C-alpha cells in the first residue's frame, strides 16, 4: 500500500502540489486501503481530475485516463483490433494457409489496447482515471461494472487478462446524468465541495506565490461572497486561481472597485452573473 495513514496521504499529496481537505485525504486513504474505486462528484473546477493526477504522482504510479463522451464504446474503452494492419499482414503472406494467418493476425502485435486494458495489463502501480463518467451512455456503465468488479478482461482470441495489481480507480462525474445505483454501490463516494477559506488561502499561496497575503485574503472573501449569491455558475477554485494570477499580472496592490470591476470577467463567465454581482457588490458607481 502506498500510504500509511491519512496524514501520510495529506503530506504526499501536498508534495505533489495538491492540498487535500480532511474529507479528500480520508477517502483517498480508504480507497487505497480497501481497494475500492472512488467516485468523485462536485462542481466543475474544484479539482476532481487534478486529484487523480496528484494521487498518481504521490504514489509513484502511472496515470491512465479514459475520457468518457457520448457514444464511447468497447473499442474505445477496452481494446480494438488493428484492422488495417491485419489486412496488410494477410495480403503480405500470399501463399500461407488460413489457419496460419489466423493464429498470427490475432496476436499481441495487432492489438490496440485502450485505457481499461492498458491499466489492467500495466505491471507498475496504476491510477486509472475514468473522467466524466456521466457523459457516457448507460451501456458503458455495465461494462465498467464488469471490469471494476474483478479487474479482468476476456479477449476471445487471446484469453483472459487479469490485473497483477489492482489499479487505483477514480471515476469523476458532473452529475449531468444520474449514475446507476449499481455503479454507486461499488464505489466509495466523495463529494468535493468548495474548500474552506483557510484551505483555499493555502491553495492560492501554493499555486500563485507572487500574490500578497493580504490581497489573497480579501480575494478569497470576495469569492466566498460571490459563491453565496444565486449565480448561474458559482466561481470555483480554478477561477479563484485565475483571478489571483490576473491580479498579479495587473500588478494590483489592493482590491478596490476599479480592479474588481475590470477583472470580474475572469471569475464570472455569464454576463447576467456579472451584472448581478456588480449590483450586489455596489459596483454601479464605477460603471457610470
Amino acid at each position, binding site marked *: 500500500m502506498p500510504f500509511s495513514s*491519512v496524514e501520510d496521504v495529506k503530506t504526499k499529496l501536498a508534495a505533489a502540489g495538491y492540498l487535500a481537505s*480532511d*474529507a479528500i485525504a*480520508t*477517502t483517498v*486513504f*480508504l*480507497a487505497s*486501503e*480497501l481497494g*475500492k474505486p472512488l467516485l468523485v*462528484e*462536485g462542481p466543475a473546477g474544484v479539482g476532481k481530475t487534478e486529484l487523480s493526477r496528484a494521487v498518481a504522482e504521490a504514489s509513484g504510479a502511472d496515470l491512465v485516463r479514459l475520457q468518457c463522451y457520448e457514444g464511447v464504446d468497447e473499442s474505445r474503452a477496452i481494446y480494438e483490433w488493428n*484492422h*488495417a494492419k491485419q*489486412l496488410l499482414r494477410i495480403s503480405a503472406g500470399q501463399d500461407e494457409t488460413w489457419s496460419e494467418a489466423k493464429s498470427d493476425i490475432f496476436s499481441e502485435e495487432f492489438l490496440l489496447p485502450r485505457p481499461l486494458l492498458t491499466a489492467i495489463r500495466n505491471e507498475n502501480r496504476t491510477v486509472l482515471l475514468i473522467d466524466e463518467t456521466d457523459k457516457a451512455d448507460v451501456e458503458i456503465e455495465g461494462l465498467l461494472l464488469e471490469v471494476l468488479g474483478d479487474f479482468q478482461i476476456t479477449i476471445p482470441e487471446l484469453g483472459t487478462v487479469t490485473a497483477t495489481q489492482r489499479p487505483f480507480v477514480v471515476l469523476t462525474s458532473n*452529475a*449531468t*446524468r*444520474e449514475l446507476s*445505483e449499481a455503479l*454507486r*454501490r461499488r464505489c*466509495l*463516494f*466523495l*463529494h468535493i465541495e468548495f474548500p474552506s477559506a483557510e484551505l483555499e488561502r493555502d491553495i492560492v499561496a501554493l499555486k500563485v506565490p507572487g500574490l500578497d497575503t*493580504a*490581497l489573497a485574503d*480579501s480575494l478569497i*472573501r*470576495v469569492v*466566498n*461572497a460571490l459563491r*453565496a449569491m*444565486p449565480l*448561474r455558475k458559482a466561481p470555483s477554485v480554478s477561477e479563484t486561481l485565475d483571478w489571483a494570477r490576473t491580479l498579479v499580472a495587473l500588478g494590483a*496592490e*489592493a*482590491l*478596490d*472597485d476599479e480592479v*474588481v470591476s475590470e477583472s470580474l470577467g475572469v471569475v464570472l463567465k455569464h454576463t*447576467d452573473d456579472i*451584472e*448581478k454581482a456588480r449590483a450586489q*457588490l*455596489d459596483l454601479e458607481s464605477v460603471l457610470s
Partner: protein
Amino acid sequence: MTSQVATRLVEFVEALRAKGVNAGPSETIDAGEVVRVLGMENRELLREGLAAALVRRGGQRDVFDQTFDLYFPAGVGRPESAREAEDMDVTQLRELLLMALLDRDPRTLAQIAEIAVDTLGQVGQPGTDTAGWSAYQTIDRLQPQTLIAAAMAMQGGGSGQGGHGLGTQFTDRLARDEIRRGVDAFREMVQSEARRRSAELRGRSLVAKHAVRNSQDRVDFLTANRQQLEELRRQVQPLARVLATRLSARRRRRRRGAIDMRRTLRRAMGTGGVPMRPVYEKPRPSRPELVLLCDVSGSVAGFSNFTMLLVQALSAQFSKVRVFAFVNAMAEVTEIVRDGAVSGGADIEPRIRQEARITKWHTSSDYGEAFLDFREFFLEAVGPRTAVLILGDARNNNQNPRFDALHEIAMRSRRTYWLNPEHHTRWGLGDSEALAYSEIVPMYECANVDQLTHFVTRLLPV
C-alpha cells in the same frame, strides 16, 4: 471490532435509512471496514470515512452529518465548557457571541453554542418525560440576529484606525453577509447541540426520527422554507437543463438521409474496405420548444415557488420557452419571467399577480376555463415540435374540466406532461380531476427534487 461498535454502526445505518439514505447491508460492511482501517480516535476522520462509505449523493450529506452527531457524539452529558461557565447570563453570552462573530472563529462559536443550550435551552421538568433541550428557546432568548448591527458598528470603528486604503473599504461591503452567515452557522450549531443533549434523555432513534431534517431531495415543495428554497434553486438548475434537452426532439442516429462518408469508410476497414454498414450523419439537434402552463393559485402556493424556480431555470437555458400562468384565465408571462431572471427572481410572482390577467370573475382555480382560454388565444404557440409541461394540482373547484380543450392541446404538441405536486393517493379525491386528466396526458407526482430527478432522468424517453 467490538460488538458494541458494531451495534452502534448498525443502528446508525438504520437511522440513515429511515431518513432516505439508501444504504444496504453491503454499505454497512463497508462502513465496518472503514472503522477498522481508521479507528475511532479521530472523530472528524471517522465522519469523512463513514460518509464515503454510506453517502451516495451530494444532497444526503446534511442528513448524514446530523445523524452522525447523534450516534457518534463528541462528548457525553454537560460539556466541559458549560461547566466552567456556570453562572453566565444572557448579556454575557451575547457579548461573547459578538466577539466570536467578529473573529469568525468557528471553534469559539461551537463552544458558545454548547454553553447557550446548557444555560438557556432547558425545557420541561428535569427527571420527567417532558425534559429536554430546545434549540428554539435558546435562539429565542439569545436573539443572535440582533447582533449583526452591533457587529457591523464595531467592525466599522475597527477599520477606521488600522485600515489600508481602498482595499479594506471594498471588503467591508462583504462584512454584513459574512456575519449573517456566521449567525446562520451558529444557529445550526445550537440545533445540533440541542439534538445531542435531548438524545441522551430521550434515546437516539427517537430524536433522529423527529429532529433530523429530511434530506434535501425529499423536502416537499409545498412546505419548503426560505433557506430550503435557496437549496432547491441550486438543485433544480441542472435538472432544468437536462429536462429541457430531454423534452426537445433528440434522436441518437438517423436511419436514413445523408451518409457520413468519413465514418462509413472508417467502418469499412473492418470488413476489408467493403462498406457493408453505412453510417448516417448525426441529426442536427433540434431546438427545443417548450410551453409551460403553470397553476399559480393559492392551493399550490408552495408549489408555485418551485414552478417559478423551474420556469426561471428553463427560460435561462433556452430561448424558445413560452411561459403561461393561470388561475382561471390564461395569460402569457414569458416577458415577466425573463426580466425577473436577471434581477434574481424574487419579484416574479407578485408581478404576475399584478400585471397578468390570470383571474376572471372569481379567484379560485379553474383548469377547464384556463385550457379553453389557451385554445382560443395561444394555440398557435403549440406545434408538432413543441413539448408542453403542465404544472398544477388539477383541483378544479368542481368546474367543467373541459377535457376536449386539453386533448386538443395534447394532440397538437409533440409531447405533453403533467407534473402534480399532490401525493398520488389523493388524486381524484374531492375536487381533484387528476385521474381524469391523467388519462389524456401522462401525469407524474412531483413533490420534491427526488421525484423531479426521477421524472427527468428515468421517465422521460431519451
